[in-house]
């Protein structure tokens, strides 16, 4: 068996929450999730240039959060341009 060692790291509260919840839901131990995620991440970074990676997590500033809150709170009206755009819609193929 490979010798195990210990690390500690400061992470965001949401990352910790995600780890806790996924571990509880899946039954996979947290150290295994972290180790697997690290391998996936490093592999992706080795194979793809930075510009080809789409960051999954976007962290809002206070102003950004306010913009999202306003957009979500507004009545869902479509602009004329969006209505015209959606006229071109064709149903996506099933995944």
């Amino acid at each position: 068996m490979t010798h195990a060692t210990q690390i500690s790291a400061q992470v965001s509260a949401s990352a910790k929450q995600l780890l806790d919840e996924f571990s509880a839901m899946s039954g996979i131990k947290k150290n295994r999730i972290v180790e697997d995620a690290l391998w996936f991440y490093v592999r992706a970074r080795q194979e793809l240039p930075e510009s080809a990676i789409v960051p999954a997590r976007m962290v809002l500033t206070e102003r950004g959060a306010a913009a999202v809150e306003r957009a979500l709170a507004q009545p869902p009206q479509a602009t004329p341009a969006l209505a015209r755009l959606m006229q071109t819609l064709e149903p996506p193929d099933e995944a």
Partner: protein
Amino acid sequence: MGEPAIRRLLAGDDTGSFRCGDPDYDLFLQRYAGQNQNRLFVGTTYAALDGPRVVGYVTVAVGQLDRDGIPSEARGRLPRYPLPVLRLARLAVDEAFQGRGLGRRLAAYAFAVALQVRAAAGCVGVVVDALPSRVSFYAELGFVELELKGGQSAIRPQPVAMFLPLAAVEAALPSSPLRRGSGAEA
């Protein structure tokens, strides 16, 4: 010549002759879009095809909007947990097909994918990484600029992150009673 059909990118699709005017977007399609989708599962590309040839594409990935570090009193009515979104990371059309509305069809297709994601797993909106020259196009659709302190796209020139709630997309569907009458028939 018929309208190019749009579907998920497949391994045998001809991407080699794609030229959109930005070599970075050509290279992404030819070298990385398939890897992202089929081996690393970090994004999906939908291709517009003229026969076997890809003449346009849109790449999307699931993502989340996070508000770490914002005091709870400043978060307003937003929930404290991350908000799931679909990120429209790249959209490009071959030079021979530009000016025919294909980019608009690809954008509409991506929005429809977002509605599917919402139904299947939850999604509050679309975030687009808009090139500076396309910001006004997305603003007309109702997108608002989004100030980020992390997770910005590494594409150059630096895109502008913009957000549109999916409720607005739903309201724009031809069958929606929330759709505005004026301009929609143009």
